[in-house]
C-alpha cells in the first residue's frame, strides 16, 4: 500500500530528486536513535517499527539504514523526523538536492509531528491544565486520557518541566516519570526499581536498597521517609496500556499503590492512558477499585484559539491566511498531531494541493493505527458520521464520547476530511 502511495505521490507532479544516502556518521546516529525508542511492548524499535512510525515502506527503511542505495529525500526526511533527527546531519547538507532555500525551510520546519513536543512549545489545554493543577497541586491522583498522539506525553513533560505552575511554591515536588512501554517496567518489581532509581538520581540517595524492592515494608519505610521530609512525590506512569496485558499480576500492586496514593498520602499518581483506567480493567473483566481514586481528564481537540496560535507562531515569518487556517482545520480538526502535520506539510510544500497529498501520505498510517484502536461500536459510529449509507444512528452517548476524544466535531462530523475518506474506504 505504501509503495502504491509513493507512486501516487510521484505521479502527482511532486518534484523528485535523485535521492540521498546516509553518511557513516549519520548511520551511527540513526542506530543510536533507533535504539532509544521503545514500541508498545517495551522492546527496541525494529526497522519495521521505524517503517510503521514513519509511514515509509520497510524496504526503503532497510535500504536507508544499510546505505545500500539512495532513497528519496521525502523518505529520508520522514525517517529522520520520526527518530527526532535533523536530516542534514544524517545525509549531509550537500546531499540535499532540492533547491537551497527550500531545503533550508524544510530543515527548519517549526512544526513537530511524531514526537512529543518540547514543554516550551506546548500550546493550549487550558482546561486540562487547570484540572491537573487542581488535582496534583493538592496531592490527588489523575488519569490523563487521550488517543494515541493526542499529547499525553507532551502534557506529562510539560508538568515535569514547569512544576511551579502546578504546585505550591514552598513545597517543590519530586516528579518521576516512568514510561511503561519500557520493558523494565513490565512487572511490579520493575516499577518499584524504576521508582527507586529515579528517587536516588534526583535526591542523591536511595530510599531503599535494590534487593529490598520485594520487601513491602522497606519500600513503605522509604516512601514514608520522603513524605515525612515534606517532599511531595509525584509518579507519572506513561502508556499505562503497556502493562494492560499483564494487569492480573498487577492486581495486588494496584491496590497497594491505591492505598499509598490515597489513604497513606505517600505519593500522587498521574497516569496517562488511551482509555480510562476503569475501562481498561473492564475490558479485561477485572474488578478493582484502583481507578476510584483518580479524576479523569480527557485530551481531545485543542481549543481553536490555541491551535491557531500554534500555527501562527510557526508561520510568524511569512504569516498565514485565514484560508490556510481553514485548510488546516479541515484536515486536522484541532487534534494536535494532525494540526502539526498539516501545518508542517503546508510549510514544506507551500501549496495546498501538494500539502494535501503530502498530508494524506503521512497521515494514512496514523489513521490506520487510530482505526485499529477503536472498538466496533466506535468504528460504526464513525462510519455513520462519515456518511456511510444505510447505517443506523449510534447512541448519543457514544457520539458524545467520540466528541470528547476529538474524533467528532461538535457538528457531529468526523474531525478530518482525510480521516472521513479513510473511514469510508475501510471494509
Amino acid at each position, binding site marked *: 500500500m505504501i509503495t502504491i502511495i509513493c507512486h501516487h505521490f510521484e505521479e502527482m507532479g511532486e518534484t523528485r530528486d535523485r535521492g540521498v544516502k546516509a553518511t557513516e556518521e549519520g548511520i551511527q546516529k540513526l542506530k543510536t536513535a533507533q535504539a532509544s525508542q521503545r514500541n508498545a511492548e517495551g522492546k527496541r524499535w525494529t526497522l519495521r517499527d521505524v517503517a510503521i512510525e514513519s509511514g515509509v515502506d520497510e524496504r526503503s527503511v532497510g535500504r536507508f539504514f544499510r546505505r545500500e542505495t539512495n532513497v528519496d529525500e521525502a523518505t529520508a526526511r520522514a525517517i529522520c523526523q520520526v527518530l527526532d533527527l535533523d536530516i542534514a546531519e544524517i545525509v549531509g547538507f550537500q546531499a540535499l538536492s532540492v533547491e537551497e532555500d527550500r531545503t533550508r525551510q524544510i530543515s527548519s520546519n517549526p512544526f513537530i509531528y511524531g514526537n512529543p513536543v518540547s514543554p516550551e512549545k506546548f500550546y493550549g489545554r487550558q482546561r486540562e491544565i487547570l484540572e491537573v*493543577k487542581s488535582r496534583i497541586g493538592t496531592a*490527588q491522583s489523575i488519569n490523563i486520557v487521550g488517543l494515541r498522539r493526542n499529547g499525553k506525553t507532551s502534557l506529562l513533560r510539560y508538568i515535569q518541566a514547569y512544576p511551579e505552575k502546578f504546585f505550591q511554591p514552598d513545597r517543590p515536588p519530586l516528579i518521576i516519570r516512568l514510561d511503561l512501554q519500557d520493558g523494565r517496567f513490565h512487572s511490579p518489581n520493575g516499577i518499584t526499581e524504576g521508582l527507586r532509581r529515579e528517587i536516588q538520581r534526583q535526591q542523591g540517595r536511595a530510599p531503599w536498597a535494590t534487593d529490598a524492592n520485594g520487601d513491602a*515494608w522497606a519500600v513503605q519505610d522509604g516512601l514514608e521517609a520522603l513524605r515525612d521530609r515534606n517532599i511531595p512525590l509525584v509518579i507519572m506512569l506513561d502508556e499505562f496500556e503497556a502493562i494492560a496485558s499483564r494487569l492480573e499480576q498487577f492486581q495486588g500492586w494496584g491496590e*497497594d499503590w491505591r*492505598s499509598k496514593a490515597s489513604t497513606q498520602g505517600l505519593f500522587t499518581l498521574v497516569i496517562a492512558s488511551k482509555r480510562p483506567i476503569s475501562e481498561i480493567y473492564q475490558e479485561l473483566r477485572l474488578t478493582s477499585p484502583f481507578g476510584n481514586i483518580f*479524576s479523569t481528564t480527557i485530551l481531545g481537540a485543542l481549543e481553536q484559539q490555541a491551535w491557531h496560535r500554534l500555527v501562527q507562531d510557526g508561520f510568524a515569518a511569512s504569516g498565514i491566511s485565514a484560508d490556510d487556517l481553514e485548510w488546516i482545520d479541515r484536515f486536522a480538526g484541532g487534534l494536535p498531531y494532525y494540526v502539526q502535520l498539516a501545518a508542517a506539510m503546508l510549510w514544506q510544500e507551500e501549496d495546498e494541493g501538494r500539502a494535501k497529498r503530502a498530508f494524506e501520505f503521512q497521515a494514512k498510517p496514523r489513521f490506520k493505527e487510530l482505526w485499529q484502536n477503536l472498538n466496533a461500536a466506535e468504528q460504526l459510529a464513525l462510519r455513520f458520521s462519515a456518511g456511510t449509507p444505510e447505517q443506523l444512528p449510534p447512541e448519543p452517548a457514544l457520539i458524545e*464520547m467520540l466528541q470528547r476524544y476529538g474524533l467528532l466535531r461538535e457538528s457531529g462530523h468526523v474531525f478530518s476530511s482525510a480521516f472521513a475518506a479513510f473511514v469510508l474506504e475501510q471494509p
Partner: protein
Amino acid sequence: MKRFLQETWELFYWSLCCPSRLQERMNDWSPAEIKDGQKLNTFAWDILLFRPNSRFIIQYLSPAEIKDGQKLNTFAWDILLFRPNSRFIIQYFLISAVLSLPLAGLISFSDRGSDWLLGLAALLISYGLGRLFLPAGIGFCSPLLLALTYWYHPQLFTESLQTVLEFLPPLSQLAIGVATGATALIITFWIRLELLRRDSLSLAWNSPWLGRGLSILAGSWLDVTYGVTVIASGVIAGIATVIFVHGVAHGLVYGIVAGTIIGITIVIVCEFVEFFINFLTVAEMGVARNNLISSILGGIIYGLACVIAVGLSIAVASVVAVVVVVVAAIVFALPLPWFLAGCILIATSTAPLKHQWLGVIIAIILAAMRQEWLNFCALWVVPVTLVSYYRILPDYVFYVGSLISTSRILKRSALNSAQRLTQLPPYTTELLWLPLPNHANILASAFHQDPNVGLAAFQKMQTIALPGLQHTIQQALPLIVAAQLASNSTTSALINSINPDHPVLSLLIPAYYQGISGETVEITADSGNSDIAILFPRFQQVASDTEAALQAGSVALRERGLERLVDQLKLLAAQLPGLGIKPRTLQNWKLAIERWQHILELEIAEQQKLSQGELLNPFQFGNPLRPDRSTIFKGRQAFADQIVRLILDRNRPTLVLHGPRRAGKTSFLLNLPRLLPSDLIPIYLDMQQASMTDSEGDFCYGLVRAIQRDTRSQGLTLPPLPKRPDFYAKPYPVLEDWLDAVLPQLGERRLLLNLDEFEKIGNAIQERRISSRLFDQLRSLIQHYDQLGFLFSGVQTLDELGPRWSNYFISVVPMEMHYLEPHEAEDLLRNPDPEFALQYDTGVVEEILHLTHCQPYLLQLIGFALVTQANLQHTQLATQALLKDAIQAAFTNGEPYFTNIWTEFTGTTPEEVAAGQTLLLALAHRNDNQISSDQVTQAARSRLLRYHVIESIEDDRLPGHRSDRIEIPLFEQWVRERAIKA
C-alpha cells in the same frame, strides 16, 4: 605650589588623625608589588627611601636574563628608581623642618655652634621614626621633644657628646677597622660574582649576607675592640650611658628605650650601606662581566665607596644614637608641666598606631619614669597620657559638643545628614575610641538621604576597628537595614532584597548573602548584629517565597501563596516585641514589616485584577480526606458518638462499618482522632496495603507499627517494636507479649483498631498468603483484651462475606454509612475552606443537594467541577448555567465513579450486569414498561437496591403501588447521557 602645600598639610594632619588615608596616599604614590593577586600596602621605607631588590640583582646576573639585554636596562631603572617618591620625601622633610623651627630658634640664641648638630639630629631622628612608623606620624613629635629638652637643659647635649666621644677608639684604630671591613666586603663581592658566573644562584643569593655580616662584624670589632656586634654594642652603650648619667635605678628601662633607638639608627645605617653595595654591584655588572680591567676598577671603586659609606654611617649613627639617649634621659628630668606636655606629645603622636593597649602601656612607662622625681604627683602622667592617646581631648569632646548642637540644628532646619556625616569621624579623624552620641542616627539618616554617601561612610568605618566607630556601625546597622527594607515600594524591589547583587544590603551584611550564592554560611546572633540575625533571615525567606509564589502558574496559587506570606508578616509583627529586638530599633523593623505587608497586599490586589479572582479549588474527590484536610470533612459526628457508646458497652461488640464505595468510610476513619474523646485512641490499619497481608507475621508487625504510630500522634510513647523477623518466627506470641507490655501503660485509655477494607483479609486467606488462624487470633484479641475495640470497614457486611466471617465474630453491630445530612452537605459546599470565595446564585446549592442526594463523593466532585468552571469563565458566582457546564465536566472527571457503579454494582455475572444496566437505562429514561421481570433482572434489581443505586418509592401515579427509581439524580442523568451498554 598651593597643591604642594595642601598635600604637605594633609601629610601632617593625616599622620596624626587619619593614618589610613595617609596609607592610601602612600599606596597611590608608590604602589607596592602585587602578591598573590593582592595589592600590598606600601611601607614607609619604600616611599621614603628606595629599597634595592636583591632578587632582581640575581636575576640580572643570570645568563638567561642577560641574553635579553634591552629589557634589563628598563628593569634596573624601574627597580632602583621607581620606589622612592621625592615629592613625598620633600613634604616629609618640610614638615620636620617646620617642626624643628622652635629648636632652631633656641639654638640660635646660644653661642655653641656644635649645637646645630642637634638640629641635624632632630631631622634624622624624625626621618628614622617616619621610616618605621608612617602612616603614624610619631616622627613629627621628635623635633618638638628635642626643643623641649634643649630649652630645659641646653648644655646637656654638649656634655653628653663629649662623654660619648671619649668612649670612641683612636682614629688610627677606627681606620684599621674600617679598612678591614671594606676589604672583607670586596672579597665578598668577588666571591658572589664568581658564584653567579657559575650559575650557583642559591649560594650567590646567600653569600652576601654571610660575607657582609662577617665583614661588618670584623670591622666593628677592630674599631671598638670590644663588644660582640654593632647592635649589641649600641644597646650596651645606651644602657651604660644612661646609668652613667642617672644611676642604676632607671638604667634598664632607659637602656631599652635608648637601645631600641640606637637599633633603629643602625638599621638605617645598614640600609645605606646595603644600598651603596647593591647600587655599585648593579652599576658594575655590565662592564665587569667580560672585562677584567673594568672589573678590577669597579672593585676598587666599590671598596672605596664602602669605606666612605661605612665610615660616614658609623659616625652619623653614633652621634644620632647619643643624641637620642641623652634626650630620653633629659625628658624624664623635666619639670612636671613640661613633662606632661612631653607626655601629650608622645601619646598624641603614637595614637595613630591604634593599638588598644598601647596608650595604657605608654602611660605606665611614663609614670614609672616619673615616679623617682615626683612620687605620687607622677600619677598625673597616667590620665594625661590616656586622655591624649585615646584622643578624648580635644577630639572627642569637640565632636560631642558639635553633635549636641548639630542635633538641635538638624531638628530645626533639616540639615543635610549626608553632608554632616562628612564633617565627623572617620572623615575628620579616624581615632575615635568612644562612641559619639547620635552618630548612628546621622549615619542612618545619611543612608536614607543618599545611599552612596552612607555606604561609603559605612565602609570606611568598617575598615577602622576602633570601638567608637564600631559601636556606631553596630547601632546604625539595624536602622539602615530596616530602612532599606522599608524603602522597597514594589514586589520586584522586595524580591531584589535577596539578590546577592543588591547594591546596598549585600555590602552591608554580606554574610547573609553568601549562602544564596551557593556557599553554606551559618549565621548566628553572635556573628553579627543580633536584631539583624533574628529578623533579616525572615525577611529573606519572605522575599524568596514571594519570588516562588509569583512563579506559580496559577493565579489562584499565586494569590494563595502571597496571602500566606501576608499572614506570616502579620504574625511576625505580632511576635516582634517578644523576639528580643532592641527597643530603639523596634519601630523601624515594624515599619519594614508593615511596608512589606502593604506591598504584598497590593500585589494580591493586582493578581486579583489579572485573574478576576481565580479561586483555589479546595474540593477533593477520589482520595479519602486525610486529617490535614479537615476543613472539607463535614458531619459524621453522630457516627462517632455511636461508636463511643458501643465501645463503652459492657458487651464490647465488634463494629462493622459498611457502605458503598465513595461514601466516605475511609475519610471518616482517618478523621476519627478529632471526633472521638481522647481516652479512645483510633488505630488505622489499611488492609489494601500489600505489606499488611503478605503473611501473618506481616499482619502482626503492621498492627503494632500502626498502634505505635497512632498513639505517638496522640502524645504517647510506647516501648520499641520487636524486630520484624521475630514476628515471622512467632507472630502471635510476639504480638501478645508486646500488647501485654503496652496496654497497662495506656491506663484508662482504650484502642479502637479500625481495619479498613477488611475484605482483603479474606482474599489473603483465599490466596493462602495467610491462614485462617488469623481469625482465631482476632477473636482471641477481642475476647481477652478489654482495652481493645475492633471496627471492620468495607463495602460488605460480615453476613455477605459468608459464614467464615459471621461464625468467628458473633457480637457484631453493623453501621451503614451513606449520605451526609443536608445541612452538612450545604456546609461543605459553602465553607470548604476559610478562604473560599465562590458565591452561589439562588437555588444552586439546593439544586446540587438534590442532584447529589448529599452523597459525599458527588458533592466534592460537583464542587470541584464548579470551581474549575468558574475559573475558566473568570467568575466567582456559581449560576445555574455554570452548574450545567460543571455537571458535564463532573461526568468526565468522575468517570471512574460512575463507571464503577455501572459495571460493578449492576450485577455479579455478565448476564446480571447486562440486565442491571438495561434496568438502569429504563429507569433513567422513565421507560418502566421496558423493565423485564425475569429472574436475572430481579437479581440485578436486588443488588442495585442493596447498594442504594436504586430505591423503591411510593408511586405518585398509582397510589398504593411502589415503583423503582435511581436514588441519586446525578447518576440518573449520567446513565441517561453517558452510559453505554456493555
